[in-house]
Each structure stands twice: as structure tokens, then as C-alpha cells.
């Protein structure tokens, strides 16, 4: 069984069946940002602390990526014959911020503004060592914690 490799360190944390995104909280004004960053976009304060963001949220807006993005920068499957469209949306987490994310749903009939979603680990590609590289996505609450492997 190949091990899962996060697409980058410090983006998300926790066990695979209950992952959480890592963000920054401004120690001066409480503004939340993602990913972790120095400096506050609201109050210009320079001091932030790393925090775990909520796992569940509501969909604020969405679209569907219907064609293979250019690679690079995209690292997933770009073969037009087997490319699978994916949703993209902004998910509001705990009234603190909206995070842009891949969505596990890609069917416009299944997506609607305001729907509840939760974060999952999303397989993206197999690297040269044969390991599964994963990123994050949001999907319907309670859906399979074991998404199909890329």
C-alpha cells in the first residue's frame, strides 16, 4: 500500500478521515486567512498564529472545471480522454473565512449555493516513487471517507 504524500507541508493536518486545513489568525484583530501567512489583510498587523480551520462549511459559490488545466502548473491528469471534471468553490468555514477548494462533486445538478460540505483528502496524482500525492477537497457531509484513488 503506497503512502499518501500531502501536496505540500503545512496545508492541512489531522487523520485522513478527519482532516483540517491550517490557516492563520491575526493576533490583533482575529481575522482568519488561508493558507498560513504572515501579516493581516484586514488590519495590516504583522503578528499571526497558525490555527486549525473548521472541517465543515457551506458552499458560497461554485463552478465546474470542465477541461484539463494547463500542466504545469496543474499536476493532476490532463489526458483529454480520461480527464475527470472537478468542482471548484468557495466554502464558508464557521463564519470566519471563505476557502477556495476543489469539490468532489462535478455535476451542476448536485451542486447548490448554501449546501453543507466537509473537508476530505483528495487524491491528485501518483509521483515518480509510486506514492499517492493528495490535496484537499470539500464534499457532501458523510460521503465516503475513502475517495477512489487517482
Amino acid at each position, binding site marked *: 500500500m503506497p503512502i499518501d504524500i500531502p*501536496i*505540500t507541508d503545512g*496545508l492541512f493536518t489531522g487523520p485522513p478521515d478527519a482532516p483540517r486545513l491550517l*490557516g492563520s489568525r491575526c493576533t490583533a484583530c482575529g*481575522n*482568519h*486567512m*488561508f*493558507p498560513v501567512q504572515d501579516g493581516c*489583510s*484586514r488590519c495590516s498587523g504583522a503578528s499571526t498564529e497558525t490555527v486549525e480551520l473548521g472541517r465543515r462549511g457551506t458552499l*458560497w*459559490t*461554485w*463552478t*465546474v*472545471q*470542465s*477541461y484539463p*488545466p*494547463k500542466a*504545469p*502548473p*496543474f*499536476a*493532476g491528469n490532463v489526458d483529454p480522454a480520461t480527464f475527470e471534471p*472537478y468542482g*471548484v*468553490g*468557495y466554502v*464558508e468555514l464557521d*463564519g*470566519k*473565512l*471563505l*476557502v*477556495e*477548494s*476543489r469539490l468532489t462533486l462535478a455535476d*451542476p445538478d448536485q451542486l447548490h*449555493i448554501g449546501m453543507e460540505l466537509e473537508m476530505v483528502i483528495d487524491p*491528485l496524482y501518483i509521483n515518480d516513487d509510486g506514492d499517492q500525492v493528495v*490535496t*484537499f477537497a470539500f464534499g457532501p457531509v458523510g460521503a465516503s471517507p475513502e475517495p477512489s484513488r487517482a
Partner: protein
Amino acid sequence: MSDDVAIVGIGMHEFGRHEGIEGIDQGVVAVRRALVDAGLQWNDIEFAFGGSQAAGSADTMVAKLGLTGLQFINVANGCATGGSALFSAYNSIKSGMFDVGMAVGFDKHERGAFRVDLKENGLEEWYGASGLALTTQFFGMKINRYMHDYDISETTLAAVANKASRNGAMNPMAWRRNELSIEDVSTSRMVSYPLTQYMFCSPAEGAVSLVLCRADRARELTETPVFLRAAVVRSRRFGSFEVMAPHLAVERGDGPTIDAAKAAFEMAGIGPDDIDLAQLQDTEVGAEIMHMAENGFCEHGDQEHMIARGETEIGGRFPVNTDGGCLANGEPVGASGLRQVYENVVQLRGDAGVRQVRGDPRVAYTHVYGSPGISGVTILSR
């Protein structure tokens, strides 16, 4: 309105795809055409601001235009590169430093969607690797939310592309000159829900150059000077919803377009009701619709009946994107904002032929928008 700076010459290299012609050489063509239009020689030009996103440094064109020693400053400001060149040229004359100068923008992009340079946009590799670094996604998400909030219909989206195609068909400098029916647009391939292929503009090639001079000398050069009443560029503020944003604030704030529009109207001392025609950033149809309201020309949601009544047609109450906009011309990033100004000069001179706005228009507006959340506005008048 102050009248410190005039546009006395305009030049364009046709927009589209031009195999074998470098972007910078298209810029040289635009400069020469602007000089002819102004009745000037290259060595009359005291300074220039210019730029491209993907086709090289503008100042290298002096090798072909002539090494006159002029002050030539390269501008790189994303989608507002052309607008920023114009803003800089405007202020160089307004300050009293120079009398005659030039703004030039050109570009040449590869086919397909824009390939986003992550570093240039302040983004990390995982963002692009995960498939989030696409401008098309932003536009799909922004209009999807807007349709939800303000009851804009899919028919209205298609109607904007239909209008652009008809205006483009009347513009000899446009890239796409075939008319698209509402059905053609609606049934074309879905790209980024709810936007289809024909609802988007494409990266393209082309160049535009403008000759500017002190307003009190304008009539020595042309009988039809057009005065630059305002030139403004604004970046995003906290709470705005912009392209290439891994996160957004929960609270919504005014975007750079709203800020730039307000500042431009204040600078010109006029309001939206005084504008006779406008060129508004139409990267895709939703952008044109949303930018009508963000620039102050209507309330959010009014676009639905305005477009249904044909008010934004060339023959309508408030013509928008009379040259076919980005949708018909494509988007060579460095030149796109200057194309809008070029079209407004053509219209205000009364030289637009079959696409001339009727009623002797006197005041015209341009708005360019792009990554990473930047807007440029100009107001021109006779």
C-alpha cells in the same frame, strides 16, 4: 472638467492571431500608425510608457523605431498594464514635465486558457498543482453567485455574447467577425459552469498606441482632439471578491472597480448619467453584466431588463462594448485596456462608420479589470 491632457493620435495593430509576427513588432506597427494619425515623427515623442505581459519589454522597440534617447519606461501591471501606461503618460503631461508622449501596449499569448505564473501572482505551487489557478474558474464562480443574488438569467448571459459578435462583425480591426446567435452561444461547450465557450474571450495578439499631448497644444496637431478627463487605477481592498484568491473574507466589501469608478467620476467632475457610451471589461459575458453595475451605470439586477430591451446595443440608450469588446477582439493583455480607449476616440471623433453611436456622443468611459484584482478606468470627452 479639467482639460489638461489630450489624445491626438491613435494606432492599432489588428487583434487576432498573427503567425510569424512577434508581439513587439505588432507594437511597432501600432506606434507608427499612431504617429501618422497625429501627424508626428518618432523623434517628436518626448517620452513613452509601454508594456506587455508575455511579449517582451516595450522599450526594446526603439531599436526599430529609432534611437532618439527618449525616456521610455516599461510597465508591468497585469491586466491593467495598458491602463497603467496611460495613467503614467497622463500624469507625466499633467505634471508639466513633458508636452508630447506615448502610451503603448501589445501582447502575444499562447493558445488556450491563460497559463498563470504562480510566483508573479503571489501564489504557491500547491494552488496551481491542485487545479485552482485558472481565471475561468473565478469568472464562473463570480457570475454564478451574482445570478443567485440578483436573478440574472442564462438567456441574458448568451445575449451579451450575441451582441459582442454583432458589434465585432462591424469592426474591421476585430479578431472574431462572425455573428453568433443566442442559441450558438448557449449550446457551445460548457467551459466553467454557467459559462460556455462562446461566453468567454480568448487570449490573443494585438497592439495599441496612443499619442498624448498638452491640451493647449492639441489643436495644433488635430482638429478632433479627445481630452482625457480621468485616468485611475485601483487595487483590491479587504472583503472584495477577486481572481486568484485562495481565501476570501466573510464580509463583502467594494471591489477595485467600484473604487476606480468613483475616483474617476470625482476626478472628471461628472456622474454615470453623463456618459454616452462605455467599453467595460468583458473577459466573459458575466463580467460585462456585473461591471455595468460596479461602474455605477445601473443597480445590481437591472441588467436583466436593460439587456432584454437592447439598451446596451449600439443603437440603445447606453451602448456598451461597441467594438465587440474582449469577446470579439480577444485579450492581448498588454493592449486590451488601450483598445477600449482607442474605440472611444474613434467614436468621439465620429469615425466609427457602421458602428458609430448615434446622437453625437461627447463623453465616453473605459474600464479594464484583471488579475490579481485590479481595475483601471478612463473618462474621455471631446
